[in-house]
């Protein structure tokens, strides 16, 4: 069986003649947690994800950026079926995934996590870690599993002898390759990469990025790349979505968004990227240190207390999405420009 061939039970091919639906789509997904305020004080809702609609077209890389606490990881758990959304719909290639079992979800979508030191079971051999999805899903002939693991290890650039090793015997970069092999052995359509390189050294980071790029071309994968390193996102992503306090505040093609960001928050994020240019000093983003409390979000536009271009309107009224071509921004300024 070649690697490009779909496994039995994989997604059905799109009907001919129609534009295929996006590989991954969320429609108004909301996730509310009830957070305790302390003994006898009752609970308050925290809207971790607040009406997110995102499309990840097949074969593309969509970057999701934002500060910690903005809801990126909650959104990722919803997409992976690890967390049920309070409201809204998640669709894989047009099919609603809300009724899917855990196994069905795992067939279609797989994660690669940030820290390869904690995401691999230290007591299991690499062969056992990589073949576990095959064993759980009982895919194919058990006699072939070893060969499949070997093929997968070769694909991610690991020597065969690694199969008998344990995670503690491998370097950070090698462990991340194992995590990638484990995610890809079921040949999912979509891979969610949650900060795949931020725990790694620069020299290893570039190797992992190159590998992800190669695998995408070879296996026709679709990535949702979650990262706060905008240089990495710009390098990898076709489209970028910027998240702030549970909402996507700007979304568009990577080139346009990086060249002319419409939202002041995107501007501030871009300004914080430290490119290795010794003629520039350390940027001052004027963002302030305080991330708003998501239990008690600011009135109007949630970004207004930190925004350098804040107007009176922003304090009272939340901006509606302003759409120009395929570039969306939720900002009163962008709405003015579009009008």
């Amino acid at each position: 069986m070649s690697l490009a061939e779909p496994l039995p039970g994989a997604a059905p091919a799109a009907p001919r003649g129609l534009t295929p639906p996006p590989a991954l789509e969320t429609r108004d997904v909301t996730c509310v947690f009830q957070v305790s305020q302390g003994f006898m004080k009752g609970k308050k809702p925290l809207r971790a994800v607040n009406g997110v609609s995102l499309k990840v077209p097949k074969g593309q890389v969509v970057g999701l950026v934002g500060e910690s606490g903005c809801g990126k990881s909650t959104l990722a758990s919803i997409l992976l079926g690890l967390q049920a959304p309070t409201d809204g719909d998640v669709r894989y290639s047009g099919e609603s995934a809300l009724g899917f079992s855990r196994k069905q979800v795992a067939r279609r979508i797989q994660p690669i996590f940030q820290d390869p030191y904690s995401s691999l079971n230290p007591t299991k051999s690499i062969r056992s870690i990589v073949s576990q999805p095959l064993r759980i899903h009982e895919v194919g002939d058990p006699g072939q599993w070893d060969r499949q693991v070997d093929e997968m290890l070769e694909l991610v650039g690991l020597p065969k002898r690694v199969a008998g090793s344990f995670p503690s015997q491998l370097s950070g970069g090698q462990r991340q390759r194992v995590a990638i092999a484990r995610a890809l052995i079921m040949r999912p359509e979509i891979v969610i990469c949650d900060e795949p390189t931020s725990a790694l050294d620069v020299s290893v980071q570039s190797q992992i990025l190159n590998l992800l790029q190669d695998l995408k071309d070879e296996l026709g994968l679709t990535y949702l790349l979650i990262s706060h390193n905008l240089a990495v996102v710009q390098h990898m992503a076709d489209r970028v979505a910027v998240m702030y306090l549970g909402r996507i505040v700007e979304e568009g093609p990577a080139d346009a968004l990086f060249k002319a960001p419409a939202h002041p928050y995107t501007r501030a994020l871009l300004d914080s990227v430290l490119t290795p240019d010794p003629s520039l000093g350390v940027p001052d983003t004027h963002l302030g240190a305080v991330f708003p409390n998501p239990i008690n979000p600011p009135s109007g536009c949630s970004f207004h207390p930190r925004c350098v271009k804040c107007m009176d309107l922003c304090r009272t009224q939340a901006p509606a999405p302003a759409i120009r071509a395929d570039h969306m921004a939720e900002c009163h300024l962008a709405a003015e420009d579009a009008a």
Partner: protein
Amino acid sequence: MSQPVLEVENLRVDIPVSAGLLHPVRGLSFSVAKGETLCIVGESGCGKSLTSLALMGLLPKTAIRTADKLEFRGEDIRMHSERKMSNLRGGAMSMIFQEPMTSLNPAYTIGNQLMEVYNRHISRSKSEARDRAVYLLEKVGISSAASRLGQYPHQLSGGLRQRVMIAMSLMCGPELIIADEPTTALDVTIQAQILHLLAELQAEFDMGLILITHDLGIVARIADKVQVMYAGKTVEEGPCADIFDTPMHPYTQGLLRCIPVPGKTRRGERLGSVPGVVPSLVGDLKGCMFRNRCPHAAESCTAGNMELHAEGGHAHACLRPLADRAAEMEAAQ
């Protein structure tokens, strides 16, 4: 440049392990002047963090530190007793650690931890310490500083905790700050803010700053001098602009090719890489330690002691630097 705050010559750290003697730091020399920023760059495992611990006298007990010269404010601190070192630490020289989550004590309030340093080093007056703490918390951009003093570390976000760490390192007006990966655990926006703050405070208080990092973006923006470390040795050093404009050592060149740069690298383009891993530093080490990962390695790289070759202020420890290799290429054509 004014008189150096810290001068180090031939600093070595040796740690006996079961397989022999481990040499994580193998002869480092550098100096930092007041108001100057020195960045030490390198991959994990190249001895950066042990260097900082060696300077502060915080090495594990089994480690052996030797140096030809280790002078802080013109005073030899090599033979300082633990008592004398702890008089310096947190006072005239202070350190900012990587993880603000683990380097603050969760059982004490912020105020308690900030004031403790002041009371230990400068005066026992509680009210003076409190005033200083409030002043510095405001200085590092924390709003309603006075009420923050009663809070515990878990009540603060990562960025705020790192600001508290910076305030703490400034409590006694140090002349030298050693910051070991101060922003690695933080968001990009907070990272830019913290670095901006560090640079500002450094200029204001005229301190020497040693910044240890693996992020070349940070180095380019903040450093005056750069020291590139590999396997416990300096492989290249010089003024910041020179290192980035004309990197001489293949390791520095490799690192610079690894990072995607918005506007320079095209999307989806293959990034350069430095294949292989840092070699084991146990036992007798000869020749260039980078040779097994170097694209330009030759027979001559296996022997000899790699000394730094200086041209002006820019020095490198490569036997076959850029110019030589270019000449060879031309000759071959």
